[in-house]
C-alpha cells in the first residue's frame, strides 16, 4: 500500500472519529435528542472493508452505522442534519441515527432483521447481472437472532453475492461475549458452507488488504463470504451507559486504529489530517444547526401518500 493511500486511510478514520466525538459532545450539551451509537475504536472496520468495495456496491448497516455511512461516501452534512432532526437530513428527520439511506446505503436499527433484506438485495443484483455486491454489517450481539441463521442458510443455498461483515467489539450493549455466545463465529459460517476469514486486528491496512480479495471473490464467484473482525469500542454502547472495567478499556487503547496509523505517517501529515477533519466537522455541525426543522404538516401528506388509492379494474 503506497503512502498516499496510508494518508487517505487515516484521513477517513479521523473524519469518523472526530465526527463521533462531536456527536457525543453535542448530546452531553443537550443539543441533540434521541439516541445514538458511536463506533469510536471500530473505524478501521468501516474504512478497511468499505474501501475495498466499489461505490456502486451496497452497504447495509445497523444501529452503529455512522462510520459505515461516511466510509461509503455519505454526505456528512446530511448525517449531522439527520441526527439533529432537520429537514435536510439524509432521511428528512424521519429516520434518525439508525435509519439512514442514500443510493447504495441502507440502515435499520433492528438487530439481525437487516440480514435477510441484504440477502434479498444481493439476490436482486445477481438476477440483474449488475455485478453489484452487498456488504452487511453485524455485531457480536446480533448472533442471538434466529433470522440471521435463516439468512446464512439461504444465501449459501442460492449462491448470493453478499459479504457478511462481523464486528465483534466484545460487548452486546453491556453484556460481554462470554455471556452471549456459545461456540465461535467462524464455525457458524462454516456450518452453512460459507467461507470465512477472521482477523484479530484494528490495523486498517491489514483489514483493507484482507478485504480486497474477499470482495473480489464474492463478486467473481457470486457466492457469500464472511469476514469476522475482532475489535473494540472505546465509547459507551450509546451515551454514558458504560459499566466496563476502565482498566480493560485502557488496555485496548494500545490497539486504537488511529494510534496504529499515526505511527506510519509524519506529525505534519497527521496534524494536517486532524485540522482538515476538525474544520469540516465544525462547519458541518454549524451549518446543520442552522437548517430548518421539518414541518409536521408534511406528515399529513405522508399519511395521504400511504393511503393513496390506485384503482384496479374489478369485475363483479
Amino acid at each position, binding site marked *: 500500500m503506497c503512502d498516499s493511500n496510508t494518508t487517505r486511510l487515516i484521513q477517513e478514520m479521523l473524519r469518523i472519529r472526530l465526527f463521533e466525538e462531536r456527536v457525543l459532545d453535542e448530546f452531553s450539551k443537550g443539543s441533540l435528542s434521541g439516541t445514538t451509537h458511536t463506533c469510536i475504536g471500530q473505524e478501521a472496520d468501516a474504512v478497511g472493508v468499505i474501501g475495498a468495495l466499489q461505490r456502486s456496491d*451496497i452497504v447495509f448497516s445497523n444501529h452503529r452505522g455512522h462510520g459505515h455511512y461516511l466510509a461509503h461516501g455519505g454526505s456528512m452534512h446530511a448525517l449531522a442534519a439527520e441526527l439533529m432532526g432537520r429537514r435536510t437530513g*439524509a*432521511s*428528512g*428527520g*424521519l*429516520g434518525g441515527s439508525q*435509519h*439512514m*439511506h442514500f443510493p447504495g446505503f*441502507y440502515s*435499520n436499527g*433492528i438487530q439481525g*432483521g*437487516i*440480514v*435477510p*433484506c*441484504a*440477502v*434479498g*438485495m*444481493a*439476490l*436482486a*443484483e445477481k*438476477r*440483474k447481472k449488475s455485478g453489484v455486491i452487498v456488504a452487511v454489517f453485524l455485531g457480536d450481539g446480533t448472533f442471538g437472532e*434466529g*433470522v440471521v441463521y*435463516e*439468512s446464512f*442458510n*439461504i444465501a449459501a*443455498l*442460492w449462491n448470493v453475492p453478499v459479504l457478511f461483515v462481523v464486528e465483534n467489539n466484545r460487548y452486546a450493549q453491556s453484556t460481554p461475549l462470554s455471556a452471549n455466545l456459545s461456540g465461535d463465529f467462524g464455525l457458524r459460517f462454516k456450518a452453512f458452507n460459507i467461507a470465512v476469514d477472521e482477523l484479530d486486528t484494528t490495523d486498517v491496512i491489514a483489514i483493507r488488504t484482507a478485504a480486497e480479495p474477499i470482495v473480489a471473490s464474492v463478486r467473481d464467484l457470486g457466492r457469500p463470504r464472511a469476514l469476522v473482525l475482532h475489535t473494540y469500542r472505546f465509547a459507551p454502547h450509546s451515551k454514558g451507559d458504560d459499566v466496563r472495567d476502565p482498566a480493560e478499556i485502557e488496555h485496548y487503547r494500545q490497539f486504537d486504529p488511529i494510534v496504529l496509523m499515526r505511527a506510519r505517517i509524519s506529525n505534519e501529515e497527521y496534524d494536517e489530517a486532524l485540522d482538515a477533519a476538525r474544520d469540516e466537522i465544525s462547519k458541518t455541525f454549524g451549518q446543520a444547526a442552522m437548517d430548518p426543522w421539518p414541518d409536521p404538516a408534511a406528515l399529513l401528506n*405522508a*399519511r395521504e*401518500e*400511504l*393511503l*393513496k*388509492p*390506485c*384503482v*384496479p*379494474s*374489478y*369485475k*363483479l
Partner: protein
Amino acid sequence: MRTVLQALNEAMHEAMTRDERVLFMGEDVLDPYGGAFKFSKGLSTKFPDRVLTTPISEAALVGIASGLALRGMRPVVEIMFGDFLTLTFDQLLNHACKYRWMYNDQVRVPIVVRTPMGGRRGYGPTHSQSIEKHFLGIPGLRVVAPNALGDPKELLIHAILSDDDPTLFIEHKLLYMSRIGQVQQAGRLEVTQCNSALAYPIVLARVAGVSKYDITIATYGYMADIVLDAVWRLAMEQEIFAEVIVPTCLSPLDASPILNSVKNTGRLLTVEEGTATLGWGSEVLSLVTEGNLKNISFAFARVGAWDLPIPSSRPLENAVLPSVQNIIDVTMKLVAQ
C-alpha cells in the same frame, strides 16, 4: 364458473407473464406439488427461474422479499398457513413497512405476502386461525382479503403489479373452492360496487327490490359466503332484510359505505371468523361512530369466533367459529330491540 383458487392461480401466471420482475417464493411451491393448497400449480414449469422453493424460514423470506423489492423486483411470498405469519411480523412491521417512510419517501417496497387463513377443516389450534386482526392498522401495510363476489384475479394482479407498498393478501382456505359469482348466478341477491376512494373495491350485496332494509352487515372474505346464506334465510323465513357490505381492503378501511347504510338501517352487525375481541369489527364500529355526524343512534353487535384457540374436533370447532345460525340469531335479536 371458476373457483377462487383457479382465479388466483391465473393471476399469478398472468403477473409473471406481464412483468419479469415478478418472482414467486414459498415452501413446497414447485411442480408437481404446486404448494400446499395448489396455488402455484404449473407456475414453476412455466417460469423455472422465477419460482423459488425455500427452506422453512418465513421471517427470512419476507426479509429477502423486501431486499429484492428495494432493488427493483416485485416479489410475491407464500406463507403456507396464515398462522405462520407470526414469524414474519418483525419483518413486516419493522422492515418492509418502515423503509419507504423512514427513508423519507426515497424508496418503495412492492411486496405481496399471501397466505391461506381460516378454519373449518379440523386442522386444530395452530393451522386454523384467522389472525389478520393483528396486522390491521400497521402504517404502510395494506391488508387485502378477496371474496367470491368479484373476481379475485384482478385484485391479486393489482397488488403484484400496481401497488408499490407492502400488501398482505389474506385468502381463506374454504374460499379457494368457492365459485366466483355464484351468488349473482343464483339470482337471489343483487351485487353492486360501492363508491370508495380506496384502491380495493367494496361490494354491496342485498335482496333486490326491498324498500327498507333492517340491518347493515359488514364482513369480508369467506365469511361473506356464510353471511349471505344467513341473509337469504333471514329474508325468506323472517322477512328481515340486510344490506351486506364486503370491503376487500381491511386496512386501511374506508367505512363510508357502511356508515351510509347504517344511517338508513339503524343497525350494524360485524362478522369475522377471527376472535371478535379487539378485532376488525371493533374498528368498524369506531369508524362508523366517529363518522356518524348527526349522532343517529344505532344498535350494534359483533359476531366472531369465541375467545379461544380453535379446537380440532369437528363439533367443537363448529361451536367456536361463527356460523349461519349465529348470524341469524344475533340479527334477530338486534332487529327485535
